[in-house]
């Protein structure tokens, strides 16, 4: 136990007190802050003033004055009017979603005690602006015995909320990229550490002082702690990014939102999403780390290791791309299937769960699959590692692996 503790602390110090760790974290920190504030940053450069919104309207005698006031209010302060109002006939109601000339069709009609608003549009971008202004004008107009207007809104049948789509796409940035980075760091950590000791033959001296199984365990635990530290740092960067976003909102007065705020707003179950993400990253990382440790133990040189770790990285990249693009490209089935494959699950399950593709039971099943697979891999790999770490075979990967498996049965 004493030696295990010592090896873990030595491995961590070696990694955390390196310049490369500091530099990579500065870069990751900056990138995280930028990604978190991407909507704000895009908002800063987005010049909506050049756009115009074509509004067709139908009114009756009692409501025609509302359009004039609405025009004045919405275009107030603009050098060039953004909202262009054009009167039309009721025929457009039937053909509105088939035409492209107008962005919005607004029909106002007087009822007994209030007005009726019918709003046809292709998206909900200007809903708040139009409806709130009309309500305000109605309050001013009726003054006494105010009755709120009745509102009917219409969207195309195939309408998809762009914000939800953006959020699901954004999940790839918020979840998948950091997960991919963390797993890659972990694999590098454990692999490079082992192959450095093995290729320099220092492992011979080390293993003469500590059991191979303890050595193996220390590398896995140290890497997991490293992953945990890196994850906490990422969360801190995220919080800093959010704080910067809030600060810039209050300074510029722009009503842009950081990804964190949008995320919390659209995912009320964000706590369970974070817990599930943490569980999958932890167990998934263990699976990858064990295989990376085995690969490094089989390799004899740094070059060997770089070649042998190729398949692991390919698996990781496949998982990354599935979670990144499958949902956005309508490949829900792929995302769902990948969530039950242990090598992909750490990256696909958080995204699939957050987007509502997986139920709680399915997530539990995916977690059980990952957990059992990781357990089996640990049991199978440990004896091979004990043999391979002190052997210097020069044959091809699978031949070498086969030899070590056979040898492990005899030791």
């Amino acid at each position, binding site marked *: 136990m*004493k*030696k295990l503790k*010592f*090896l873990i602390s*030595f491995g961590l110090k*070696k990694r955390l007190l390196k310049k490369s760790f500091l530099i990579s974290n500065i870069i990751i920190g900056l990138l995280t802050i930028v990604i978190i504030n991407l909507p704000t940053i895009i908002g800063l450069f987005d010049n909506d003033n050049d756009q115009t919104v074509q509004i067709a309207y139908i009114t009756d005698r009692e409501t025609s004055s509302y359009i004039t006031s609405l025009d004045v209010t919405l275009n107030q302060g603009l050098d060039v009017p953004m909202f262009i109002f054009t009167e039309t006939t009721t025929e457009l109601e039937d053909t509105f979603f088939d035409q492209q000339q107008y962005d919005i069709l607004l029909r106002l009609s007087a009822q007994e005690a209030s007005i009726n608003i019918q709003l046809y549009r292709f998206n909900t971008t200007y809903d708040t602006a139009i409806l709130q202004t009309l309500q305000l004008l109605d309050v001013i107009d009726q003054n006494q015995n105010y009755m709120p207007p009745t509102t009917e809104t219409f969207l195309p049948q195939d309408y998809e909320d762009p914000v939800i789509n953006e959020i699901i796409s954004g999940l790839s940035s918020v979840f998948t990229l950091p997960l991919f980075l963390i797993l890659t760091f972990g694999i590098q950590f454990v692999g490079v550490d082992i192959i*450095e*000791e093995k290729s*320099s*033959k*220092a*492992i*011979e*001296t*080390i*293993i*003469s*002082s*500590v*059991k*191979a199984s303890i050595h193996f365990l220390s590398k896995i635990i140290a890497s997991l702690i490293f992953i945990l530290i890196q994850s906490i740092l990422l969360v801190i960067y995220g919080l800093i990014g959010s704080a910067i976003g809030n600060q810039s909102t209050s300074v510029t007065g722009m009503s842009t939102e950081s990804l964190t705020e949008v995320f919390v707003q659209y995912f009320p179950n964000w706590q369970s999403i974070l817990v599930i993400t943490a569980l999958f990253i932890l167990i998934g990382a263990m699976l990858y780390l064990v295989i990376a440790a085995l690969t490094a133990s089989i390799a004899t040189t740094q070059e060997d290791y770089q070649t042998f770790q190729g398949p692991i990285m390919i698996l990781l990249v496949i998982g990354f791309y599935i979670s990144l693009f499958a949902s956005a490209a309508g490949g829900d089935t792929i995302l769902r299937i990948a969530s039950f494959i242990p090598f992909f699950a750490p990256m696909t399950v958080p995204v699939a769960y957050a987007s509502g593709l997986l139920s709680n039971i399915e997530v539990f099943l995916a977690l059980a699959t990952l957990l059992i697979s990781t357990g089996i891999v640990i049991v199978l790999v440990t004896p091979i590692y004990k043999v391979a770490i*002190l052997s210097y075979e020069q044959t091809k990967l699978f031949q070498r692996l086969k030899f070590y498996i*056979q*040898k492990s049965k*005899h*030791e």
Partner: protein
Amino acid sequence: MLDVKNVSMSYGEVKAVQNLSFTIKPGEIFGLLGTNGAGKTTTFRMIMGLIQPKSGSITLDGHQVSYDDVNDIGYMIEERSLLTKITVKDLMYYLGQLKEVSKEDIEKRLDYWLDRFHITEYKLKKVKELSKGNQQKIQFIAALINNPKLLILDEPFSGLDPINTELFVQTIRDFQKQGTMVIFSSHQLDHVESFCEKIVVLEKGQVILEGPIQTIKETYQKLNIRIKATHIDMKSLENIEGVIQIDTYPNAIMVKVASKECVKDVFDVVKTFDHVTTFDVLEPPLSEIFIDKVTRHEKA
């Protein structure tokens, strides 16, 4: 005392070590010899408890050797085996603490050994910045840092100049005086001869020679006779029964004979030569016995 009794180890069909037995008492230096792949490393690993023998037993001071004993064992492997990207001090802290030596003791012992090997100035240098010879010294210090009860040295002198070799020799002698058991392995058999009282020679896992060096030499029977004279009649020497080989050197010749009985026959011929200044009957060097035994075993 280290007692290795009838130890065998195999990997499937491959017999790495067969029926190996030897004993080392405190203060004894024991030679474990063999060609590459003979089974020496497997034997070292079994002694350190890294792998369990298939049969037989290994005891250290009366108890079955296990991983709990590694803190009392110092091991220096044949090749360079150091982490090169860290400083000498950090490396010793790492390896020393793995042997459960306190930081204070590591510091004290490291300073002592660095001073003794005249490399104090390298304490804070990265290992990769050191010359091969100095790296060898660091590796040697790493094996000594826990003041081991049992010291396993595999080719400790490789890459060392004669002065540094002498430093190592003195150090090993000091440990011997303190009662440390030393297992010594080297292809430089003159070192083995000067150090060890007893040896075992392994070949493909089998013991082909074992016992005290003196007994081995006496049992071997063949002798070498060095002759110096102004005129040597090679023909007459070659015709003597029992003469196996004659080697010519700048100032002398070496006649190898099959047994003690042939010496008198050779002497009778040599005394007929002019100005004979030397007639030395020499025991065969260990290297000669080693080569002879290994070659015979390979042929068999």
